[in-house]
C-alpha cells in the first residue's frame, strides 16, 4: 500500500526538483524600468506570498559624477549643474549651493535678492509637492489629481520662464544674489498665482482627503517612527509626519526666512496618509510665506559686488537648506584656487530612500508602490 504524498514529504524534495510553488520565499525584481519607481530605481523584493519580507534598492543608474565634475569647474561654472540633481526643485538646489559659496567667500546677498529667492524657492516647493501629489496619486490609482496638479504647476513654470527663461532647470540664482532684476509685473503675477492656487489646493483635498479608497490605501501604510527617522537620517516631510517639529527654515534660518510667519505642519502616525496631509499643509504655508514676501520686497540692488574671479580662502563649509524633500547640504572644501577642491552634496532623497526597506517590511507589494511615492524621491538626486 502506498501512502498518500503529504505536504511535508512534498517539501522534502531535493533542491533541483523543487518548483517555485514549493518555495516559501520569492525574490521579485522590480525595475529599473518601472513606471511606479519615478525614474530608474531597481528594487529587489523578498516576498512571502504578497507580503514583503525585505527589500534591497539598487541605485546608480543615473550617476553622472556631479561631485567629480565640480572639482573640474570653477565655482560659477558648477552652478547650473546643481539644478540637474533634484530637477523638479532646481531652485532649491541653486539656493543651497549659492549660499554655501557665499559663506565661503564671506559675501552676503542683498536683502532684495533674499526676498526674491524666498519667493522663487517657495513657488518651487509648491511645484515639487504638486508633482509629487499627482504622481503619487496616479501610482495608487487615482488619475484625476495628476491632471489637476499639472494644470496648476504650469502657472508656476510660467513665472519661472518669464523670470529667467527656463522652466525646469532654472539656474535662477547666482553666487552673490540673483542675475536678473524681476520683470515688469512679477509681483502681480505672483499675487495672481497665490490667489489662483489657494482654492485649488482645497480642490485636491476634496478629491483625496476623505476619499475612502485613498484613505484605505494610505492609512497605516509605510509607518515609520520618529526614532527610526532620526536614526536613519530621514528629514523633510517624512520626519515631520512622524511628529518631529523640525524644519531648517525655522531652526537655522537662511535667506530671509527668519522674517516671515509660518508654521511647521506635523503629523502623528508617520504613515503615508499623514505624510500626505503634511505636504498639503506645507503648500498652504508656502503660500503664506510668498504672500508676506511679495508684499514687502525691499528696493535696492539684487546682486552683491562679487569678484569676477572667485577665489575663496582656504577652508571648508557645510551649509544646508530645507529642500522640498528634506535637508539638502553642501560641504565645500576650498584650497584657495578658482575651483572647489571638493564638493560633497548631501542629498535628501538618497538618505530618505534608505528607509524604504524598513517602511515596507510586513506590507504588501502594492504598498511598496505607495511608499516609494510617499518618500518623494527624485532619482537624479539619489544618483547624482
Amino acid at each position, binding site marked *: 500500500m502506498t501512502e498518500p504524498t503529504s505536504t511535508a514529504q512534498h517539501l522534502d524534495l531535493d533542491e533541483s526538483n523543487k518548483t517555485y510553488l514549493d518555495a516559501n520565499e520569492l525574490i521579485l525584481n522590480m525595475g529599473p524600468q518601472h513606471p511606479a519607481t519615478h525614474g530608474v530605481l531597481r528594487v529587489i523584493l523578498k516576498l512571502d506570498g504578497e507580503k514583503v519580507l525585505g527589500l534591497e534598492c539598487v541605485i546608480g543608474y543615473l550617476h553622472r559624477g556631479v561631485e*567629480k565634475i565640480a572639482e573640474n569647474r570653477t565655482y560659477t561654472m558648477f552652478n547650473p549643474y546643481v539644478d540637474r540633481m533634484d530637477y523638479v526643485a532646481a531652485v532649491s538646489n541653486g539656493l543651497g549651493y549659492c549660499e554655501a559659496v557665499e559663506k565661503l567667500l564671506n559675501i552676503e546677498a542683498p536683502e532684495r535678492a533674499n526676498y526674491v529667492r524666498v519667493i522663487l524657492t517657495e513657488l518651487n516647493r509648491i511645484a515639487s509637492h504638486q508633482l509629487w501629489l499627482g504622481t503619487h496619486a496616479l501610482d495608487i490609482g487615482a488619475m484625476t489629481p495628476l491632471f489637476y496638479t499639472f494644470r496648476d504647476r504650469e502657472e508656476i513654470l510660467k513665472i519661472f520662464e518669464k523670470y529667467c527663461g527656463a522652466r525646469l532647470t532654472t539656474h535662477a540664482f547666482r553666487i552673490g544674489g540673483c542675475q536678473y532684476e524681476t520683470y515688469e509685473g512679477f509681483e502681480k503675477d505672483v499675487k495672481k498665482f497665490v490667489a489662483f492656487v489657494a482654492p485649488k489646493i482645497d480642490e485636491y483635498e476634496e478629491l483625496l482627503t476623505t476619499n475612502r479608497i485613498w484613505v484605505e490605501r494610505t492609512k497605516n501604510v509605510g509607518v515609520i517612527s520618529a526614532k527610526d527617522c532620526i536614526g536613519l*537620517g530621514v528629514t523633510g516631510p517624512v520626519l515631520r509626519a512622524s511628529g518631529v517639529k523640525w524644519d531648517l527654515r525655522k531652526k537655522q534660518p537662511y535667506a530671509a526666512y527668519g522674517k516671515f510667519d509660518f508654521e511647521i505642519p506635523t503629523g502623528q502616525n508617520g504613515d503615508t496618509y499623514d505624510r500626505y496631509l503634511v505636504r498639503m499643509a506645507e503648500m498652504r504655508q508656502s503660500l503664506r510665506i510668498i504672500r508676506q514676501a511679495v508684499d514687502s520686497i525691499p528696493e535696492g540692488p539684487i546682486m552683491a559686488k562679487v569678484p569676477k574671479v572667485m577665489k575663496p580662502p582656504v577652508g571648508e563649509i557645510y551649509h544646508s537648506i530645507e529642500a522640498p524633500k528634506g535637508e539638502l547640504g553642501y560641504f565645500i572644501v576650498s584650497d584657495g584656487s578658482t575651483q572647489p577642491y*571638493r564638493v560633497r552634496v*548631501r542629498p535628501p532623497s538618497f538618505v530618505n530612500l534608505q528607509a524604504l526597506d524598513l517602511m515596507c517590511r510586513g506590507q504588501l507589494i502594492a504598498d511598496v508602490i505607495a511608499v516609494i511615492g510617499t518618500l518623494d524621491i527624485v532619482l537624479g538626486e539619489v*544618483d547624482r
Partner: protein
Amino acid sequence: MVSKLKRQFGSGIEAFTYLGQNYLNVDRSLITNLLRILCEEEQFDYCVDITAVHYPKRERQFDIVWILYSFERNERLRVKTQIADGEHIPSAVSMWPTANWLEREAYDMFGIHFDGHPDLKRILLPEGWKGHPLRKDYGIIQQDQEWVQINLGIESGQ
C-alpha cells in the same frame, strides 16, 4: 564640551571654528570612542553625512568627515580624522543606521574600508567596476573601459 572631551582624550583632539562652524580634528585611534560618546552622551543623535576628501600629496591621504547634528541642542559639529591609503576605519552603523549607505558611498567613491559595516559594497557604480572616481588621481573622463566593453557592448562610454 570640548574641554571635557580634551580632559578625557588628552592631546588627540583639537577644536576649531571656521565661519562660525565648529569642528574637531581627532586622532585616528580615538575615533571609535569619540563618536560613541558624541552619539550617546552628547546627544548628537543625527548623523547628517559621512564623506571623505582626498589629498594625494599628504602621507595620510584621506580626510574622513562626519557631520553630526543634535536635535536637542540645535547644533552641528564636524569630526575629522586622517588616514593613510589602505588603512581601515571603524564603521558607525551601530550608532547611526544612516551610516550604512553613506559609508558605502565613501567606499565606492574613495575606496575607504569601514570595519564592521554589515554589507560594504559599491552603491552608485556597478559591482566589478575598477577604480574609485573621487580620488584625485582618477581623471575626469577616465572610466573602466573593460567593464564598459563587456557589459554595455560598446567601445567607449565617452
